[in-house]
């Protein structure tokens, strides 16, 4: 597939009818959670979309995101997406390895400088180059070099977006998210990076958090960039509002149970069997923004809450250190009762001391009490 072909030309060369293309656009609209009324606009945009080059860098990651992405596309529809983007570098998916792989990456970078899309999954260790390197290049250097020429960076998964599990306390490798790294280390650039610090710092970053993110969300964001070539509307944590605009709680089909106060108390009680709200079992739905409740997982089969497990809040920063997956949102994250017991003891001790002081003051007052006779009534 030649690089300069538009997607429209690709489809026609694959003998796919216009009607087939419209079906593809309808599926893409649903994929991007855009209203069906947008289908004509998508069709027009897709027709003459240039095929961006995509470089996928994986750092400290568990390959869950790649797994999620690859499982998401079956031949035909999504396959088309991936055939329409030239995935020029993915060290898990590509055949080449070692120097050859790096050479392919550098070639792709030179050829599409300033145009290619950089997709990152996994967090970047800032605690030391030795923690994670590819072909002898430290993750940090590789990211900085590759980011220099990227049109936009998509941080896929909570690791790339917020630091992820590697960043959990005590964060031995000093793992950082893409944004943190660029903001923090753009000033000490190795000479191999030909971009200024301010350029790096202002690179548009789209966070697609989740552990892993919903497959449909990854492809949706890629498709959006492919279709419109622009950054989708982002929220305060630079997550696409289209997918991360609503909290799970607001879109959860079990919400009526929450409102009626019907909760599952344990994982196997009557409430759990009846599919009641999982708030008491630690559900983080109310503070988690993601599309699980609508797009669902495994092609609309289910999502964690639907299968009886409380949401972990995996698309939110620090979900890994947020005070226990099974502790309800409204419970404290420290052992308060121990503190309360100590406080009562301390209060009692202080009370006794102050009580004694009060009594002493009273008896002192009684001691220097002067009898008041009828002659002492006037000044």
């Amino acid at each position: 597939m030649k690089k300069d072909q538009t997607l429209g030309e690709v489809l026609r060369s694959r003998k796919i009818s216009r009607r087939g293309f419209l079906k593809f656009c309808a599926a893409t609209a649903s994929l991007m959670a855009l209203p069906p009324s947008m289908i004509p606009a998508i069709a027009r945009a897709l027709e003459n979309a240039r095929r961006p080059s995509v470089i996928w860098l994986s750092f400290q990651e568990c390959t869950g995101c790649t797994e999620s992405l690859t499982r998401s596309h079956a031949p035909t529809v999504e396959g088309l997406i991936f055939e329409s983007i030239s995935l020029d570098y993915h060290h898990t998916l590509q055949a080449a390895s070692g120097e050859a792989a790096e050479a392919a990456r550098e070639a792709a970078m030179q050829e599409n400088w300033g145009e290619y899309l950089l997709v990152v999954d996994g967090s970047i260790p800032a605690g030391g180059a030795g923690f994670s390197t590819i072909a002898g290049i430290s993750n940090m250097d590789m990211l900085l070099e590759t980011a220099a020429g990227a049109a936009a960076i998509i941080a896929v998964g909570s690791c790339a977006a917020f630091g992820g599990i590697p960043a959990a306390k005590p964060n031995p490798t000093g793992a950082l998210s893409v944004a943190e790294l660029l903001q923090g280390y753009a000033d000490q650039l190795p000479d191999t990076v030909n971009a200024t610090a301010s350029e790096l710092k202002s690179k548009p970053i789209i966070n697609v958090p989740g552990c892993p993110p919903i497959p449909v969300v990854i492809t949706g964001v890629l498709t959006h960039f492919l279709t419109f070539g622009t950054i989708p509307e982002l929220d305060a944590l630079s997550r696409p509002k289209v997918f991360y605009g609503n909290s799970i709680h607001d879109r959860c089909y079990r919400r009526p149970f929450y409102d009626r106060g019907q909760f599952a108390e344990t994982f196997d009680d009557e409430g759990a069997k009846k599919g009641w709200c999982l708030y008491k079992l630690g559900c983080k739905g109310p503070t988690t923004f993601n599309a699980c409740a609508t797009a669902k997982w495994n092609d609309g089969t289910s999502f964690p809450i639907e299968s009886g497990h409380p949401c972990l809040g995996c698309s939110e920063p620090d979900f890994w250190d947020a005070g226990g997956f099974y502790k309800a949102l409204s419970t404290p994250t420290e052992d308060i009762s121990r503190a309360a017991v100590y406080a009562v003891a301390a209060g009692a001790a202080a009370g006794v001391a102050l009580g004694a002081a009060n009594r002493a003051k009273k008896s002192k007052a009684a001691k220097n009490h002067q009898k008041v006779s009828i002659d002492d009534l006037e000044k």
Partner: protein
Amino acid sequence: MTHSFNIETDAGLTHNVQPLMHEIRHAVQALLDTGETTVIDLRSLPLAPGELEVIEATLGRGEVNAVLEAMGPSEISETVFPGVWLVRHFNADKQVMGVFVEITRMPSLLLSQNEDIADGLRQLDEKLETMF
């Protein structure tokens, strides 16, 4: 002792079917009054388990059932309510790619497209040359 149980779904307790029916009803009214068409993406609704089946059962099947073979099948069928169509897209692996309710005289996907017609014309010319 591991015991498994599936989570019961009490249709009465879930709340998407009724409002959706009302939305469809208003769309049909608009279709009649102004000819305005509406497309509802069922994948954008927080459907509870079993709710999609309830919706499809409620809408039922009407007189027209079409299948579009393009990158996997797409079933386009009119429901028992004329003007209300159920469109389901699958990919090659029969995985659901999209489920839509279209309130229109006829879903646009069924219309033959100009580019395809032009291609068809070329193929017809070629056939005419070879056959006669």
